[in-house]
């Protein structure tokens, strides 16, 4: 198991900076996901750790020793590539045995190791198959086995599930977690898929423009986004510019286009600051009438006009216009027999609690 530290890692391609001073500590046994859009530098970060790229400045430490300038074959770090990169002219056995053979392990040792790995990835008996004869999911498993047999300190995974269909992807997420637990290896995982990141990680590092926007547990990143980018990227939110009016206990009052709204308290903001209010689409509800006494008392109840109602299987998305002309989207989860009670053109109310209105800095 390995402990990985990135210390102020920077890299440019030509004149374009792609990594801007990344620093992070990844503890033994963690499953850390680098989450971001394509081009944010997440794959480059991974390649710097693998040794396939060299960082321009800063340092990369593995268990306290610098590996920044070592060639990839001298690092005890292995990668599962995005397209799996299985050697097409070797069968499953030879693919997995490639690393041990290079280390001149004994034949018996290799045989045992490969069998063990095939058990781990649940593919026993397929040693003789060529990569061309395997399904996408099977190739994925072979790629993992080929990396893990070398007992790497760190396992790097570059969008390994990207090429699989949705059902298989969800299945492989669980499988991967299971394999990680069994092998007890530190994983650094790269993806642009927030569901994958939220499902699998012990911590998520949200990347944007070559820098970490926020590093934290899935709950932290999802519930307490610290920047407008994270608020917008993780989950589906309504994000609108507001100005801060003042604090009231746990609640911060803000003004959204003339409407006063109670939001989750934020000590960093002062009265008069401009900020952004972020509300998850599925944490707000739509009410056909103003709630009478006895019902749940929402902190914010805003009159609105329904613009469109879109049914999409497990939920229905309702788009409404607030008084000031701002569009707000609410996602309602569907249950059999109870369809949404609003329709286009209706007057209704949007309601959410102060705690669901997260304030992030304006930039």
């Amino acid at each position, binding site marked *: 198991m390995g402990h990985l530290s990135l210390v102020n890692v920077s890299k440019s391609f030509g004149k374009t900076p792609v990594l801007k001073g990344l620093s992070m500590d990844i503890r033994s046994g963690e499953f850390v996901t680098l989450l971001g859009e394509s081009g944010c530098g997440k794959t480059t970060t991974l390649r710097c750790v693998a040794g396939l790229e060299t960082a321009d400045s800063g340092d990369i430490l593995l268990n306290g020793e610098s590996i920044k300038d070592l060639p990839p074959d001298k690092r005890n770090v292995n990668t599962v590539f995005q397209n799996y990169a299985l050697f097409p002219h070797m069968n499953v056995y030879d693919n997995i045995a490639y690393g041990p053979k290079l280390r001149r392990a004994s034949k018996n040792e290799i045989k045992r190791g490969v069998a063990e790995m095939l058990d781990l990835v649940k593919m026993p008996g397929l040693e003789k198959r*060529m990569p*061309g004869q395997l399904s996408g999911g099977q190739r994925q498993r072979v790629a993992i086995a080929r990396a893990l047999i070398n007992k790497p300190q760190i396992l790097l995974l570059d969008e390994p599930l990207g090429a699989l269909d949705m059902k298989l992807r969800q299945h492989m997420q669980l499988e991967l977690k299971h394999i990680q637990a069994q092998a007890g290896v530190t994983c650094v995982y790269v993806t642009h898929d927030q569901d994958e990141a939220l499902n699998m990680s012990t911590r998520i590092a949200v990347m944007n423009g070559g820098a970490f926007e926020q590093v934290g547990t899935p709950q932290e990143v999802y519930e307490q986004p610290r920047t407008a980018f994270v608020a917008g990227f993780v989950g589906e939110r309504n994000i609108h510019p507001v100005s801060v009016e003042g604090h009231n206990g746990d609640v911060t009052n803000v003004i959204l286009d003339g409407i006063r709204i109670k939001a989750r308290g934020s000590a960093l903001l002062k009265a008069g600051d401009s900020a952004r209010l972020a509300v998850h689409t599925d944490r707000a509800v739509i009410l056909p009438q103003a709630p009478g006494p006895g019902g749940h008392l929402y902190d914010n109840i805003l009159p609105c006009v329904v613009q469109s109602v879109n049914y999409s299987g497990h939920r229905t998305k309702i788009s409404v216009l607030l008084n000031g002309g701002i569009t707000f989207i609410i996602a309602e989860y569907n249950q059999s027999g109870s369809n949404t009670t609003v329709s286009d053109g209706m007057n209704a109310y949007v309601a959410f609690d102060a705690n669901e209105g997260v304030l992030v800095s304006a930039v």
Partner: protein
Amino acid sequence: MGKRIYIFMIMALLYLPVAIVIIYSFNASKSGAVWTGFTLDWYSAAARDGRLIDSLLMSLEIAFFTCIISCVLGTMGAVGAARMRPRAKQAASLFMYISLIIPEIILGVALLMFFSVLNVRYGVMTMVLSHTTFCVPYVFIMVSIRLRAVDPSFIEAARDLGAKPFKAFASITLPIIMPAIASGALISMAMSLDDVVISSLVSGPQSVTLPMRIYSMLRLGVTPEINALSTVLVFVMFMLVGLLQFVQAGRRSERAAKKEARNA
């Protein structure tokens, strides 16, 4: 149905002259088209003709060296070009393609004049130099096409799993491009064995190849020994090309298996 008849007719036409040569190599009649009976005399006559045998050996010697040098150069060129910067790579490939379509006679004339100004003695060396020159582009192109199958991530994966750069090349790139190198070898061999135009310009008195010998005999008139010898040459080529098809068919079935797996 009409389509199949058309295909069959063209194929028959393609093979007609070859078939005629083979059939007439067994014809007892010394001249003309009349069939007068089966004989193997022409084969033994050809086998006894020392000059024919000499030129056959000369052809094989030149083809052998040509094949080896072309494969090494062409493969290194293709692998090297793949590592070049895009601009340089484009220029290099363009140069190879242009060399490929220069009319044979002009390449032959240019080489002849070049050797002459350098005062090189015409012989096996000038022949091998010239043959290699028209074979290298073929090997280069075949290997270059095959190299596209070597995804850069394969090499990265090999390095990641602990292979040094040369080991990664030897264990990943080389086996994948091997069929293309083999095809290139066979094509070089076939082209060297077949060439008349360039050979007859740059050869010396001691380096007369079989096609050159056949050509000069043909200009004097048809003799049945040529039939016999040509038949032998045709069978050698059949075997070379058969081998080539075998190599490529293996690759095709590999591709087909991949396609199937993807569809499954």
